[in-house]
């Protein structure tokens, strides 16, 4: 029997930008990621065992400990949990839900970056058209949006901290664009 295959990050070989005291960009650790689709009742049933109860308020994330549920649509949530056996966790979660639903493992489909610092919002606004002021996009808000031509999920986890999740093949484009948009903030 052959040796176990190792993981290779989508960010391998990419240089993450940074602007001293203004912006840091780090790769979010490997995680279990699920797409949950179903009714709010299904989401509530999942919440009872998952931890955070998925929000029914649009564009709001709920989190408990190191697990989170991001509202993406009236029947769609994006779930995050620490890395582990995604199939086993999915089976246990699904077992708790009587309603029709889909809980699909997308742990490897998506990757995440964490942008932190006083210029994080400005760098995001280099290619994201949303109003990222604290009043319009408060901590705990999440949404599917665009970073130039790439679809991203944007989640504000702190006043100056954003988590950006996207499909892995866009890693080069998004890292390159963040770097380009961050460059002027060095001045």
């Amino acid at each position, binding site marked *: 029997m052959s040796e176990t295959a190792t993981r290779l990050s989508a960010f391998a070989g990419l240089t993450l930008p940074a602007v001293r005291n203004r912006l840091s960009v780090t790769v979010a650790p490997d995680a279990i990621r699920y797409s949950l*689709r179903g009714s709010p009742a299904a989401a509530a049933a999942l919440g009872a065992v998952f931890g955070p109860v998925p929000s029914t308020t649009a564009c709001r994330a709920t989190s408990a400990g190191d697990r989170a549920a991001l509202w993406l649509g009236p029947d769609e949530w994006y779930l995050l949990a620490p890395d582990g056996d995604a199939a086993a966790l999915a089976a246990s979660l699904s077992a708790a839900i009587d309603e029709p639903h889909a809980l699909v493992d997308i*742990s490897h489909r998506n990757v995440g970056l964490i942008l932190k610092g006083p210029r994080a919002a400005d760098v995001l606004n280099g290619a994201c*058209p949303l109003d990222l002021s604290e009043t319009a996009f408060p901590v705990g808000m999440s949404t599917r949006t665009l970073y130039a031509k790439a679809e991203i999920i944007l989640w504000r986890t702190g006043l100056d901290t954003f988590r950006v999740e996207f499909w892995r093949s866009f890693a*080069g484009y998004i890292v390159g664009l963040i770097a380009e948009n961050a*460059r002027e903030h060095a001045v």
Partner: protein
Amino acid sequence: MSRFRTEAGGRVKRDKVLSFTFDGVAYQGLTGDTLASALLANGVHLVGRSFKYHRPRGIVTAGPEDQNALITLRRDAARETPNLRATQVELYQGLEAESQNRWPSLKFDVNAINGLASSLFVSGFYYKTFMWPRSFWKNVYEPRIRAAAGLGKAPAKADPDRYTSRYVHCDVLVIGAGPAGLTAALAAKEAGATVILADEGAEFGGSLLGDAVTTIEGKSTDAWMSDVVMNLAMSDKVRMLARTTAFGYFADNFVALVERVTDHLAAPSDALPRERLWQVRAKQVILATGALERPLVFPENDRPGIMMAEAGRSFLNRYGVKVGLRAVVFTATDSAYRAAIDLKQAGVDIQLIADLRARPPADVVDEALACGLTVRAASTLCGTQGGLRVSAAEVGEVNGDLTIGRKEVVDCDVVLMSGGWTPNINLHSQSRGRLIYNETTQNFLPGAPGYDNVSIGACKGTYDLSATMNEGYAAGEAAARASGRKGGMKKGFSSLGGLAMGGGHLGVVPHDRDPGRVKAFVDFQHDVTAKDIKLATREGFQSIEHVKRFTTTGMATDQGKTSNMNALAIAAKAIGKAIPEVGLTTFRLPYTPTTFGNFAGTARGDLFDPIRKTPMHDWAAAQGAPFENVALWKRAWYFPKAGEDMHAAVNRECKTVRTTVGMFDASTLGKIEVVGPDAAEFMNRMYVNPWTKLEIGRCRYGIMCRDDGFVYDDGVVGRMAADRFHVTTTTGGAPRVMNLMEDYLQTEFTDLKVFLTSTTEQWAVIAVQGPKAREVLAPLVEGIDIGKDAMPHMSVREGRICGVPTRLFRISFTGELGFEVNVPADYGQGVLDAIWREVREAGGCAYGTEAMHVLRAEKGYIIVGQDTDGTLTPDEAGVGWAVGKAKADFLGKRGLMRPDLTGPSRKQLIGLLTVDPKRVPDEGAQLVASAAPAKGSHALGHVTSAYWSENLGRSIAMAQLENGRARLGETVYITSLTGAAFPAVVADPIFYDKAGARIDV
């Protein structure tokens, strides 16, 4: 210091001298100068040549509206920017500028001969003259006209500068930072609003900059302005953008601003973009864009040295530059008197003030007289003299009947003119606001706005300084309140000495010259004269939009900022209509010319579009594979060994797959997880195939149609569970298939409990194809029996490979025994490494998309989008067997029953075998009935795929052919780009292993 530079005053820094060159001549200027003010300080007025007659042109204004002072700025070979306005270019150390549209030199331009022949070059000349012979237009006339006309030259090298963009939201966007804009921003800030204040100048203050006489709240304008600017700058709610032009006003207060970040710097930081595009969404917009001074239209009004009166004053007060030593002032407004007084006090001889008006306001005249100036009312200029610079003005008395009485030639080196003020309504008009013509002031003023905006100050016709500031403060407070802030404050401003801006004249002034011959310019850049506009009306053009296009007036780079009103008045008079009946042309973006870089932003090079790479991309690159673009993906094309060209590599790869085994990165295929109790029924409705009876663990080749019955996408679908399907799609079709499914689910099939998730990127996919495929995988797979009977063709199993989870498909796009290994994407490379070791041991190879295409064509497998083009039904594409005819309904079922899809002479996909086996047809080549069909014959079809097949030792092709399946064995002819059509025999499209024996082993 030059005799044109004043001893003191202005906002230039006299201790900071800068060197620059213009047309190779070295000059000196001061920090704070524009290129225009620095040239004038050196006595240089001549800066360019006009578009058509190549007449010498001088600096006319001190602002962005200048039509003449267009220059090319050069930093290095790649950084050459044409058509910049010298009045906006800030001087920096070492600046290199060149004049445009002249040859061989600015002072001697051979094309100026056009001016002598100007009676030939009338309006519409190009339309009328260069008609015959027809072929000459493309090859002779147009290239020559284009070479002689035009302004600066576009740079030949790629732009090395960077351009960025920023989206930003605010409560109140204030455009223009003169007295109106500053007070508006102040009020909005005090009311608690978030404010953006943008001004195209380097400094905030607008008309107040360098105003030495006016006081506001008892302070000098300088002191008042710096207090207000400081107050605003200290607030974290106010973003102040200097050197920033609002150039486009879009729906719902979406306003585009361009900030020129580095153009004014001698040695800008690499980190800074040259320009920054601000895309602003504002709840409220305040337009404080001021007014522009109009030229007077008099004979020979275009000589260098003839300029706007307020520009002369601005150059003096702001930049400490005397625009000349002896001036004639020609005016129809009060404001020019202030210019005359200021210039006289600076030591300029003001020969006289010729006022077109019979009775200028007494207080204005008295003040001038008190300063020792000569004023002549009811006076006009009948012409000017001079070559490259005005040397004299012909002043004439205007009689009551508008004839000219006594005339006098007055020496001068500068003429300051003022035809009145035109409110700058460009952005209001862009925002779809209405315009109202004011008979009294002879101006178009902003009417009802198109969006939530308001015009204040001079751009709405308010010229009194205190009134302007009061209006500004009130507008700022109201805008803040309308955007949800508290507001409620009130403030009144007092000022003394603001500019009187009354009076004005539209159209040609009275003169005694032959109106059919004299050149009285309306549009200086495009050489449009009053007589051109009259000619247009004689030619029958009644609408100003037509007059504009016939004469090109207002089509210069300034979009008619200074010329429109005069042109309109001349046209209206000639047609005999009132000005509002003739109408005003529509203002369009950009407000001033804007760089391409600004629009391109970061979307260039590798960031132009996302470049999507598979998890095994770097491995393929390391193997030396070139890549093919498929949608946004990069796919490995072929894997050349040393010394191999593409054909050799592809031939080897194709042979290897059929004899041993090949490995292929299929990760880009679209994947959709269809889950839910009604998943099978959903599949029944979306695909033409039946799905209910598909067993768990088995696969089926699915065809999807649009509702018109034409093939839309295809792919293998595996049933993972009763309520779960693993659907694959084409690489390029993945997003649209997902969207179509979601669309139907949300709008048509709301009765179904089904949920969709894209899993395209969850799985890395490694195809292993060939007789040795099983032996390659066997040592790596755990928990799955991949034997012939345990795992037949078209089945799927879940288990592990190389210790990680896999969905293992036994499917084939080559016609050989084949598997597709799906593993979580991050494991793709690791699993590929293990498979690659086994493949090499088995004597196999890696293959790319080209070999994949050849191998599938040998088997007659279609590629949707290549062999189909949105006009073939499943039957016509040769996959009619997939249609579940017993199903009650499916997407496209009714479309397929349309009579025109069941009638004769529809095209069908067939194979082609060229009579000359070595000849590979061109993909896309037409099929015709004979080697030399008569002209006008219709094509019978076209080649969709064509390859050299090394396995068959001959070429193979697939084609769409009318009644193709009924023509098997017939000969058709394939057109060629390089010679005569050549014959091919119509064949079954399965060229290799027709029985399919190789797949089921």
